[in-house]
């Protein structure tokens, strides 16, 4: 059972680490949000300086692998995919569910379903045995995670029994808290060093 303050707490804590948190009433609303973000975003955000940033030739070459707007949504529920592909077709966005390995130059949005949320740190938990899910949440410029409100727990201890169960077989699970960040140069915070530049959490309200 989720109490409203868990949603509130998660929202507050996630916002503190620069995640964008939005409540959504339905999966359809979530998919509309995803396509809107994709349409609204710059073609390539990775380079703060735009595409003509000075790169070595190898790095430059990788840039060329990305020519259109792409959303990667591996392992999303069938209904949501239906909505999403309709919206993408309408807005001229390429929707893929696999083949992330050949798109390491970056894609616009990686969409995943979070299995849980941890309120006290503003964390989403992404279970990603599937390599495509793993990469979608790592390689994209924007990672959007849909988080069912009912799966939010108070702290990581509350999630322990579930995690232990998963770990009984091969497993790859991540706690994701805010976008990728570094402070390695002069301790100045920079977002999006290797992973996503932005993290959006869509909290899916209980029916």
């Amino acid at each position, binding site marked *: 059972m989720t109490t409203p303050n868990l949603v509130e707490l998660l929202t507050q*804590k996630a916002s503190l*680490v620069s995640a964008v948190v939005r409540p959504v009433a339905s999966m359809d609303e979530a998919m509309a949000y995803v396509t809107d973000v994709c349409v609204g975003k710059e073609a390539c955000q*990775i*380079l*703060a*300086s735009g595409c003509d*940033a*000075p*790169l*070595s030739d*190898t*790095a430059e*070459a*990788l*840039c060329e692998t990305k020519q259109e707007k792409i959303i990667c949504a591996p392992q999303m529920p069938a209904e949501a995919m239906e909505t999403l592909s309709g919206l993408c077709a309408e807005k001229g966005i390429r929707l893929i569910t696999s083949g992330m*390995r050949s798109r*390491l130059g*970056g894609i616009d949005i990686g969409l995943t379903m979070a299995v849980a949320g941890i309120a006290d*740190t*503003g964390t989403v938990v992404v279970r990603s*045995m*599937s*390599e495509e899910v*793993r*990469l979608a949440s*790592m*390689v994209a410029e924007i990672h959007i995670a849909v988080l069912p409100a009912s799966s939010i727990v108070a702290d*990581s*201890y509350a999630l*322990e029994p579930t*995690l*232990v169960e*998963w*770990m*009984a*077989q*091969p*497993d*790859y*699970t*991540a*706690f*994701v*808290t805010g*976008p*990728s*960040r*570094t*402070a*390695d*140069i*002069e*301790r*100045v915070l*920079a977002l*999006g*060093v*290797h*992973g*996503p530049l932005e993290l959006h959490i869509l909290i899916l309200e209980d029916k």
Partner: protein
Amino acid sequence: MQDATTLKEYRRQLREALDNDFQRQALDKFAVAYRTSRANAFAGIDAPELIAEIAAAKDVAIDHLEELFQEFKRHAEAAGTTVHLAATAHEANEIIARIAKENNVKTIVKSKSMTAEETHLNDHLEAEGLEVTETDLGEWIIQLRHEGPTHMVMPAIHLSRYQVADLFTEVTNKKQDVDIQKLVKVARRELRPKFCQADMGISGANFAIAATGTIGLITNEGNGRLTTTLPRVHVALAGIDKLMPSLHDALRIIRCLPKNATGQAITSYVTWITGAVPCEVGPEGKKVKHVVFLDNGRMAMAKDPEFKQVLRCIRCGACANVCPVYRLVGGHKYGHIYIGAIGLVATYFFHGREAAKNLVQNCLNCGACKAVCAAGIDLPTLIKEVHARIQDEEGHPLYSSVAGQVLKNRSLFHTMLKSARLLQKPVTGGTPYLRHLPMFLFKDQDFRALPAVADEAFRDRWEKIKPHVTNAKLKVALFSGCVQDFVYPEQMEAAVAVIATKEGVAMEYPMGQSCCGLPLMMMGEKKAGRELAAHNMNAIDAQDFDYIVTLCASCASYLKHGYKRLFADDPAMAYKAAQFAHRVIDFSSFVRDVLGITDEAFAGPDKKVTYHAPCHLCRGLGVTEAPRALLGVAGLEYVPAEEEDVCCGFGGTFSVKFPELSKELLTKKINNLKATGATAMATDCPGCIMQIRGGFERDKTPFEVRHVAEYLAERLKRK
């Protein structure tokens, strides 16, 4: 990497580091910001309790490393991971090179691993013809510069954006802007192709969970996730001390580590990997997965009652963040591979005596690291222990064994001090300072004036000033320490006057007492230190007194905690030491908490007084309020100074061995005190008074520096 072969050479390197203005400013800024961000991160959390829990859980794990290894291996192998145990650094490197060969690996990406730094893994793999790229931004930068890390969490904290821009210009062959946001994005794009091409990924592991065979990685950048996902082979290299029984242990550490490291509630990513997960480019669509555990002396350390706590370390780097010495000279000079306080200890075990012998002397014993350690490791004591061990192995330097011989013989020591009074005449010029120092004796000591030995020692005044108390309610022994006895007897006299205002307090000054022995500990003369402690416990029979009061914070903390440790292996003496320690109390706590002195005792005009918190009082004994409150009780206006509890740079013998560092710390202290606008400072330690008063004297700034007892005595109402 610190590689000096002699102390002289080490001091030269330290002087060079002091000249690195950028590094010093960067570390200074960080040290100040860190205080606030750590405090904010722990707001509402009982940090000491969390730290105690971590320490206890780690201790359990350390006692069962062999079983935990077997358990981890069983579970991990069932899930498709191959598990190795390497006895030495070289063996670990060979195992990893072999895995590379067997899998036809050409290129490797690495995420951050201190253990790989420990084994010099990159050098080994590169010698085998493999291409290795560090992908953590800081690690990549220092790899390109062919350097080691200067901080465990922020490896490139010593470099400026200009240096990084120049470096990236070289790497990309294109002129780069000096803009951090852009530089970070350039790194992102430059490293992506490396991830794409790599055949093998090497990571560390923050946790190895025995119950499930899972490894846990905590990172901020996300490179750890790419490293463990893209290449078809993944090797995790971890110290065997990373083993812990259950996931709970790891979750507990995650609550503390990021907060203690950088003031973050949690890192951006915590990744849990169990077994060989699907991987498109791996054989049969699965990852080739290996975990290599490194022993390299850890198993032996786990059986060493004194040093096993080193294995509790969770590599948060906090002990460097707060260390005043690290802050001055940076990690290349304050560590070998592991840096900061833990580096001083770990270097001896992982990299040998040669690498450690100079380093371990460079510690003020200020206790800042111990107070902040996420695993409750008693770092300052261990640093001194390593020093003592090295001296036992290598032979004690002459000055140090002579000091041991002199100090443990009370009458010889005191006779020498008394003759010093006569001998110093030509150098005092009639002032209370040594004016014309014979330079060969006190080379580089001129940054502060040193006090002269007083005309009459406190012990020689005692019979004259001793208050006579009939029907005593409380019996108190006074412990003066050498400095107050022979240099600042007026501080003791002031204390006697203050204590005497309460009726029924009988004071004794046991004449047999000698130096507390801390200086010997600082010099690594453990054996002589033990004899001295036994001597003092005989001279002051604890059972005769309710309290043993001392005005010296260093003596107090050493008498209270150090003595028990010295006799840990001798039950009878340990019992005696515990009885003794139980009665030891510092002057301020005694006057405020036991005597309960009130403002009625005081009169006189108001005056602004700032305060310096002695390391051994505020951290050593946890006394923070009493002295400040007493100033208020006495009707003085206490004005707080910046960084009040940062060491003044005295550190006993430290200031003699490393005058350049001592001087820098003193300068900072003096500037902070001056900035308060007050012109008087109180404190509770004669060593700090010697240092700070001497500094103001050299600075030619009139500033009153006195013991809390003196301020109280001055304002006592005449009866």
